[in-house]
Every structure is written in C-alpha cells, then in structure tokens.
C-alpha cells in the first residue's frame, strides 16, 4: 500500500468526522473507523435482542477472544492481561488494591498525567499518609541517561519509596521513556514499577513479558482505533493474588481473569472490538507503515509551525520522540497565561470553539506547548490551518 492512501483519502474512505473541523488531537480521544463503529452497533443489537444469552454466555467468549488478540499485540501472556475501561481505571485498580504500609511513598514525575497524579494523592491521603515525590525532566534533554539519573537520584534519596509510576510515553510532553533501563534500576532497589502506557499500544512496540514491570496499563481506544473505553492492564504473576479489581462481584476469589471480567452488568462491547481494530491496523499497513508517514509529517509540520511562530524546537533525543505526537513551543500570548493550566485550557477551548481545530495544549516549564497528534487521516493542510491561527493570536 502506497503512502498516498494516508491523509484525505483514508479520512474519506475509513472515517467519519464532523464537517469543517480539523482534528489534530487523536492522542486524547482516538477516532473510530466507520467499519468498527458499525460492528459495535451490530454487537449492541445482538446484546439487546437477547440479553440473557449475551450476558450469561456470549460475553465471556468475546472477552477471551479479544484478550488473547490484545495479548499477542503487546507480547503478553494472556493469563497476565485483563481489560479495564481506560488507563486511569488501570492505575486506580492497582493503587487501590495494593497492600500499602503506613508511610509508604510514591515516585512520579512532573509529566505524570493529572488523573494518575490525583490517584496517587488519593492513595497517599487514604492509605499511607506518605509523601508523593516527583522527579523532574526538563528541556533541553541531552540524552536518555538524564532521565534515568533523575529517577535514580530520587530513589536513592528517599528509601521509603515503595512504588514508581513511569509513563511509557508522557501525555503532556510526548516523551518516550527508556523503560528497560529504568525498570532495571528500580529492580536493583526493590521498588515496584507501574508503567502508565496509556499512549503506547499502537504507537510503539511493546513486549510485556520481556519488559517485566510489575504493572502496565495502556489504552487501545487511542492508537489502536477501538471504541472507548478499552484498555488493558497487565499484572505480573506474583501480584495476582492481591491485585483485585475496583468492583468486587460474582467472581470474587475466582482468580484475576474472572474477577476483572465480571464487574456487574454493563457495556463491555468496546473490549470485543479489539480483534477487528487490530485487523484494521494491520490492513492499513501496521505500525511501521504508519510511523513512516507520521514521522515525516510531524518533522515537516513542527518545523513549519515553529519557524512561523519563531519559537525554538524543544530539544530531545530522537530516541525519545513519540512517533505520533510532537510538541511545539508557543510564544507568550495575551489572555493565555504561560505555564498555567487555565492558559492551556482556555486556548484549547478557544481553538476548538472559535476555530474548529481540535488539539491539545500543555503547560510545562513556565511555557505553553502545543501537542500535535498525527495519524492516518491527517495531512499537511490540517497543520497549515493551525499555523495560521496561532500566528495571528496577539502576543504579549
């Protein structure tokens, strides 16, 4: 398949979006191909036409098929893999099941996703009374060692740290962490490692049995094109006996697989679209093909936009660049206070409402950064649009 099918042609053929809107934020909410939306509706019909049969029999078959497909995709032993509704739920499941001791501390980073940071705070409040540390990673990032050392120096200074929460790819700043090395350093020090891989499935190679953290969560409804909410939680075998789901239901004490499967009557159909979504993913060329397209596109457009705005490019090693997401430093604007959540939120909403451009803006290091996503339905003209708008905004 030639690259030419990505962009407007793919958008038209495989997706359906609101007219006149520019979508540069696949990273936040994903997008669902028409084929998969239709299949989801079919499954809804199947469920609604015969709910008893669906819930008492069919559901478990669909669940295990989907789980096995997901497991193959992320190099996991299916026994260690369960579905959760989103990465935030995956994080909450582990943090709230963990048998904490008084005073236990948690290490996160300044780039940790807000909801995950909140879950850590909740646990500190409710269960440990302990401190939450954050290690810093600031631009310019010379090399991966910088990141590893920031983590290890924190670990060595604070021996009460019980759990480290690391991103596979950070959400606000699109950085790929050198996980193998970081996990090794955690192992040496006997701390548990939780990887928030919300953005990883479909974006980077994952081999969980090789990687062997203690826990790993990742969304399929971002870069693997399933309906929302659909995510995986991988739990290392030695934690199966205590790592129970948020909702205790019929399958209590029947093992991790059955316990996570049954969490009361609800709509689990998003999980069941995983095989279909993986099929779509591979039919359009798979990760390698998509990477080729998005890396070239993002290289091009980030240069184009930062040149136009006159801002320097954030310095990070190529090995830490996320294939589908890239940051552009924004100038200081009137009305969007730099480095603040309100500034970022206001700009996101104004771009969305006034200019019909969907994107993400994140505060970091006292500045605002535009987080651009690129995927199979994007093309250059999408980014030219936002370049113009951003250039026209009044500056301080």
């Amino acid at each position, binding site marked *: 398949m030639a690259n030419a099918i990505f962009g407007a042609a793919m958008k038209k053929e495989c997706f359906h979006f609101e007219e006149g809107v520019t979508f540069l934020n696949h990273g936040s*909410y994903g997008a669902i191909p028409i084929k998969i939306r239709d299949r989801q509706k079919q499954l809804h019909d199947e469920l609604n036409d015969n709910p008893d049969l669906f819930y008492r029999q069919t559901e478990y078959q669909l669940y295990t098929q989907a789980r096995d497909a997901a497991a193959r995709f992320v190099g996991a032993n299916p026994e260690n893999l369960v579905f959760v509704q989103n990465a935030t739920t995956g994080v909450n499941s582990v943090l709230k099941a963990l048998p904490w001791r008084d005073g236990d501390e948690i290490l996160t980073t300044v780039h940790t996703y807000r909801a995950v940071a909140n879950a850590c705070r909740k646990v500190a409040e409710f269960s440990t009374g302990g401190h939450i540390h954050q290690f810093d990673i600031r631009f310019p990032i010379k090399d991966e060692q910088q990141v590893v050392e920031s983590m290890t120096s924190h670990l060595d200074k604070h021996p009460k740290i019980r759990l480290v929460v690391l991103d596979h790819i950070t959400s606000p700043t699109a950085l790929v962490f050198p996980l193998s090395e970081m996990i090794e350093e955690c192992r040496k020090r006997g701390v548990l490692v939780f990887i928030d891989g919300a953005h990883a499935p479909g974006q980077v190679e994952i081999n969980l049995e090789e990687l062997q953290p203690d826990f790993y969560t990742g969304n399929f409804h971002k870069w693997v094109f399933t309906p929302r909410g659909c995510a995986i939680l991988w739990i290392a075998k030695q934690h199966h006996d205590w790592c129970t789901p948020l909702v205790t239901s019929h399958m209590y004490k029947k093992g991790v697989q059955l316990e996570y499967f049954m969490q009361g009557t609800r709509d689990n159909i998003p999980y069941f679209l995983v095989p279909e979504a993986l099929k779509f993913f591979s039919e359009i060329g798979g990760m390698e093909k998509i990477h080729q397209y998005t890396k070239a596109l993002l290289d091009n457009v980030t240069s184009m936009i930062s040149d136009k705005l006159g801002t320097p490019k954030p310095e990070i090693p190529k090995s830490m660049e996320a294939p589908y997401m890239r940051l552009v430093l924004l100038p200081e604007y009137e009305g969007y206070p730099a480095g603040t959540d309100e500034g970022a939120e206001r700009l996101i909403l104004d771009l969305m409402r006034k200019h019909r451009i969907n994107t993400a803006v994140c505060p970091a290091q006292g500045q605002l950064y535009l987080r651009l996503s690129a995927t199979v339905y994007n093309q250059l003209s999408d980014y030219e649009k936002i370049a113009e708008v951003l250039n026209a905004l009044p500056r301080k």
Partner: protein
Amino acid sequence: MAKAGVEFGAEVKKKYFHFKEAFTFLNHASYGAVPTHIREKQKQLLDVVNDNPDVFYRQAWKPFMSTAIQAAAEFLGADPNNVVLVQNATTGINTVLKAFPWKKGDEILATTHTYCSIQNTCRKAAQISTGGHFHQLEINFPIKDEEEIVRDMASAIDEHPSVRIVLLDHITSPTALLMPLKRMIEECRKRGVLVLIDGAHAPGQIEINLEELCPDFYVGNFHKWVYTPRGCAFLWVHKDHQNWCTPLVTSYMYDKGFQLEYGQQGTRDDTPYFLIPDAIQFYKDMGGRERITKYTKELLDSACKMIAERLQTRLAEIPKSMEVPGMKIVLLPDCTYNERYSNTWEGSQNLQFDIMNKHRIHVTVNSIQGRLYMRLAANIYNEMADYEKLADLLVKLFKEGE
C-alpha cells in the same frame, strides 16, 4: 408514539421492542430490555460523540450528564445534588463500602437474601476490619409479617454493637421481597448505624422518594425496570457523607466536589446514562407505574398460580405487603428424575442453563432453604402464552421425567 391505550403483550412487544426469534423472555429482572427507539437514539448519540470526540469529552458531556441527573432525581423524589450516576448497582455498593474508613473490628450487617455479588463485596470490604467476615440477618420462609423482620434486624444490631453499616435490599433479588424499609431505617437510626440500601430492582417497579426515605446511601438500576441501555444506575449519598464517599476511579476532578468527581472517571462510554430522560419518557408514555405494574402484577399472579398448580407446588409464603409487581418466585418440585437439578446452587445453575440453551426460555433459578425456586418476571411485552410455554416445559422436566 401511542400513549395509554396501547395493548400490552404481543402488540407492545412488536411495536416497541425487538427480540431474538423463538426465545421466551421471562427474566426482565436480570438484564431489562431496551426499546427499539432508545437503542436507535443511543447509536445516534454514539455517532455524535465519534464524529467530534473532543467537543463531546471536553464540553458537551456536562449538559448531557446534568440533564440525565435532573430527570433521574425527579423520578426518584431526590435532590439532584445528592444523585450521581454509576454503571450498575454493584458498582454503587462497592463505591460506598470501599470509601468507608473502616477500623479494625468494624462490622457489616446484611441479610441471607443479599445478592451474591454484594455478599462478596461485603467480604472484600470487611477484609481489613474483620478478616472478611460479615453478619447476615436470617430471613426464612414462611414470613408471617413485616414486623418480625424489623424486630430481628433490631436484635441483630443490638447483639453486634460493632456493626457500622447495615446493608438492606429494597427488593431482594433471589426472592422478590419488598422490605419494610421505613421501619428498618427507623430502628437503624435509633442505634446510630449507617444504612446502605441496595435498591437495584426498585426504580420503575415501586414508588421511591429518596429525600423522604432518607437512608445514608441508596443505589438503584435504571437499566432494569426503567428501560435504559446497560450499564446505567445511580448512587444517592446523604449530604453528610459526600465529602468522603468518593468514586472508585479517582481522576481529573479529584477534590473538585461530589458531582464533578463522579462525572468524570476517565475516558469511556457514558451514553447509557444520557438515555435516562428518553427512557423515563417511554415509561410515562406506556402509562407510568400505575398502568405498567397493574398489568404485570395481574399477569404474574395468574401465571405463577397456574404454574404452581400444574407443578403441584406453591408460591413463597409471604405477606401481601411484601409482594412486588414485576417479580415472583415459585417453588419447584424436588427433581427425582435427574440429579442435574438437585436442590443446590449447582442444580439451580444447571436448570437455568438448560432451560436457556435447550429450550430457549430465560428465567432465573435459585436455591433457597434447601429447595429450588424459579424467579419469574413480567413486563409490558409479556403475556400468558409465555408462561404457559414454561409451564409445559417444567411439567415435562419435573413431573414426567423428560
């Protein structure tokens, strides 16, 4: 859409629902049923979300959520500030029991009719405080009057002064009993224990006025008797507890207040919640509780009487005041022909499974006090012929040794 005057039974089934051919649905109580036009509306809503997810997840969800909560609160006689939506009653119960600050020795009191998944939740929540043990008030057939249950509960609390939370059903799941909640809550209040009501089956089946009833917590499903898609339920939390009764998933809105914390629990599909207003409208269009329950109660009474007669068994012996209009249990005979249907939990599951897979009839079977009971439900798409089909089958299975 036709209002009152539409014929319940086959006509309503054809006009408003869509079911798999050749199956008989006598188990509305377990999974509910979603009218065709509400299914379509859900698909449309999903399309709106999918056509522009950013707008929906960043902004548009808020008015959908508050409209749904308004409608739900009105339906439940509740202050909307005290109502949040959860995916099912089990999640609601888990939310309360796992947020509660248990101390060593603290105990839970439930009953022997508490839904099995909720019994598990009690065990899990009690892990820290009692090593997993919790008390169950015994409620046995025959039940002479409601007061005896109230008295027994009061004694149980007096006998176990470490009880912190009493977990009561509004309508029990395995046995379809309407509990005398007002009196029970009174006795709990006198003793300073918190009351958590599992009203999974209550919305749509009986009148509820939550601000009047005023327990500490109440959960109920909309996806059973109020025709919404699954999973759609609510959790009502008394104002005094809203600061600590936080949701299972801590997310973006941590510390931003009760409504916002529950409103956002990570990216997922909340469209079932947003169909609450339409579902309530359908419920009203079908004549509301008065008309619907009059039909189902009459149908169920006749059907269960007929089945008990043909099987030469009986119904559960309970006061009339404890009956509910949509569900009823019938005693099954001992199965002398087939060990597969022994009077045990396994026997109940085998029977339920076989009736579904071999005979395409949906029911629920439970083992209670050493006997098998069949739980039958009735809704506006059912009619007598459905139950006659079941009766024919049961006679074959139990009386003729098929």
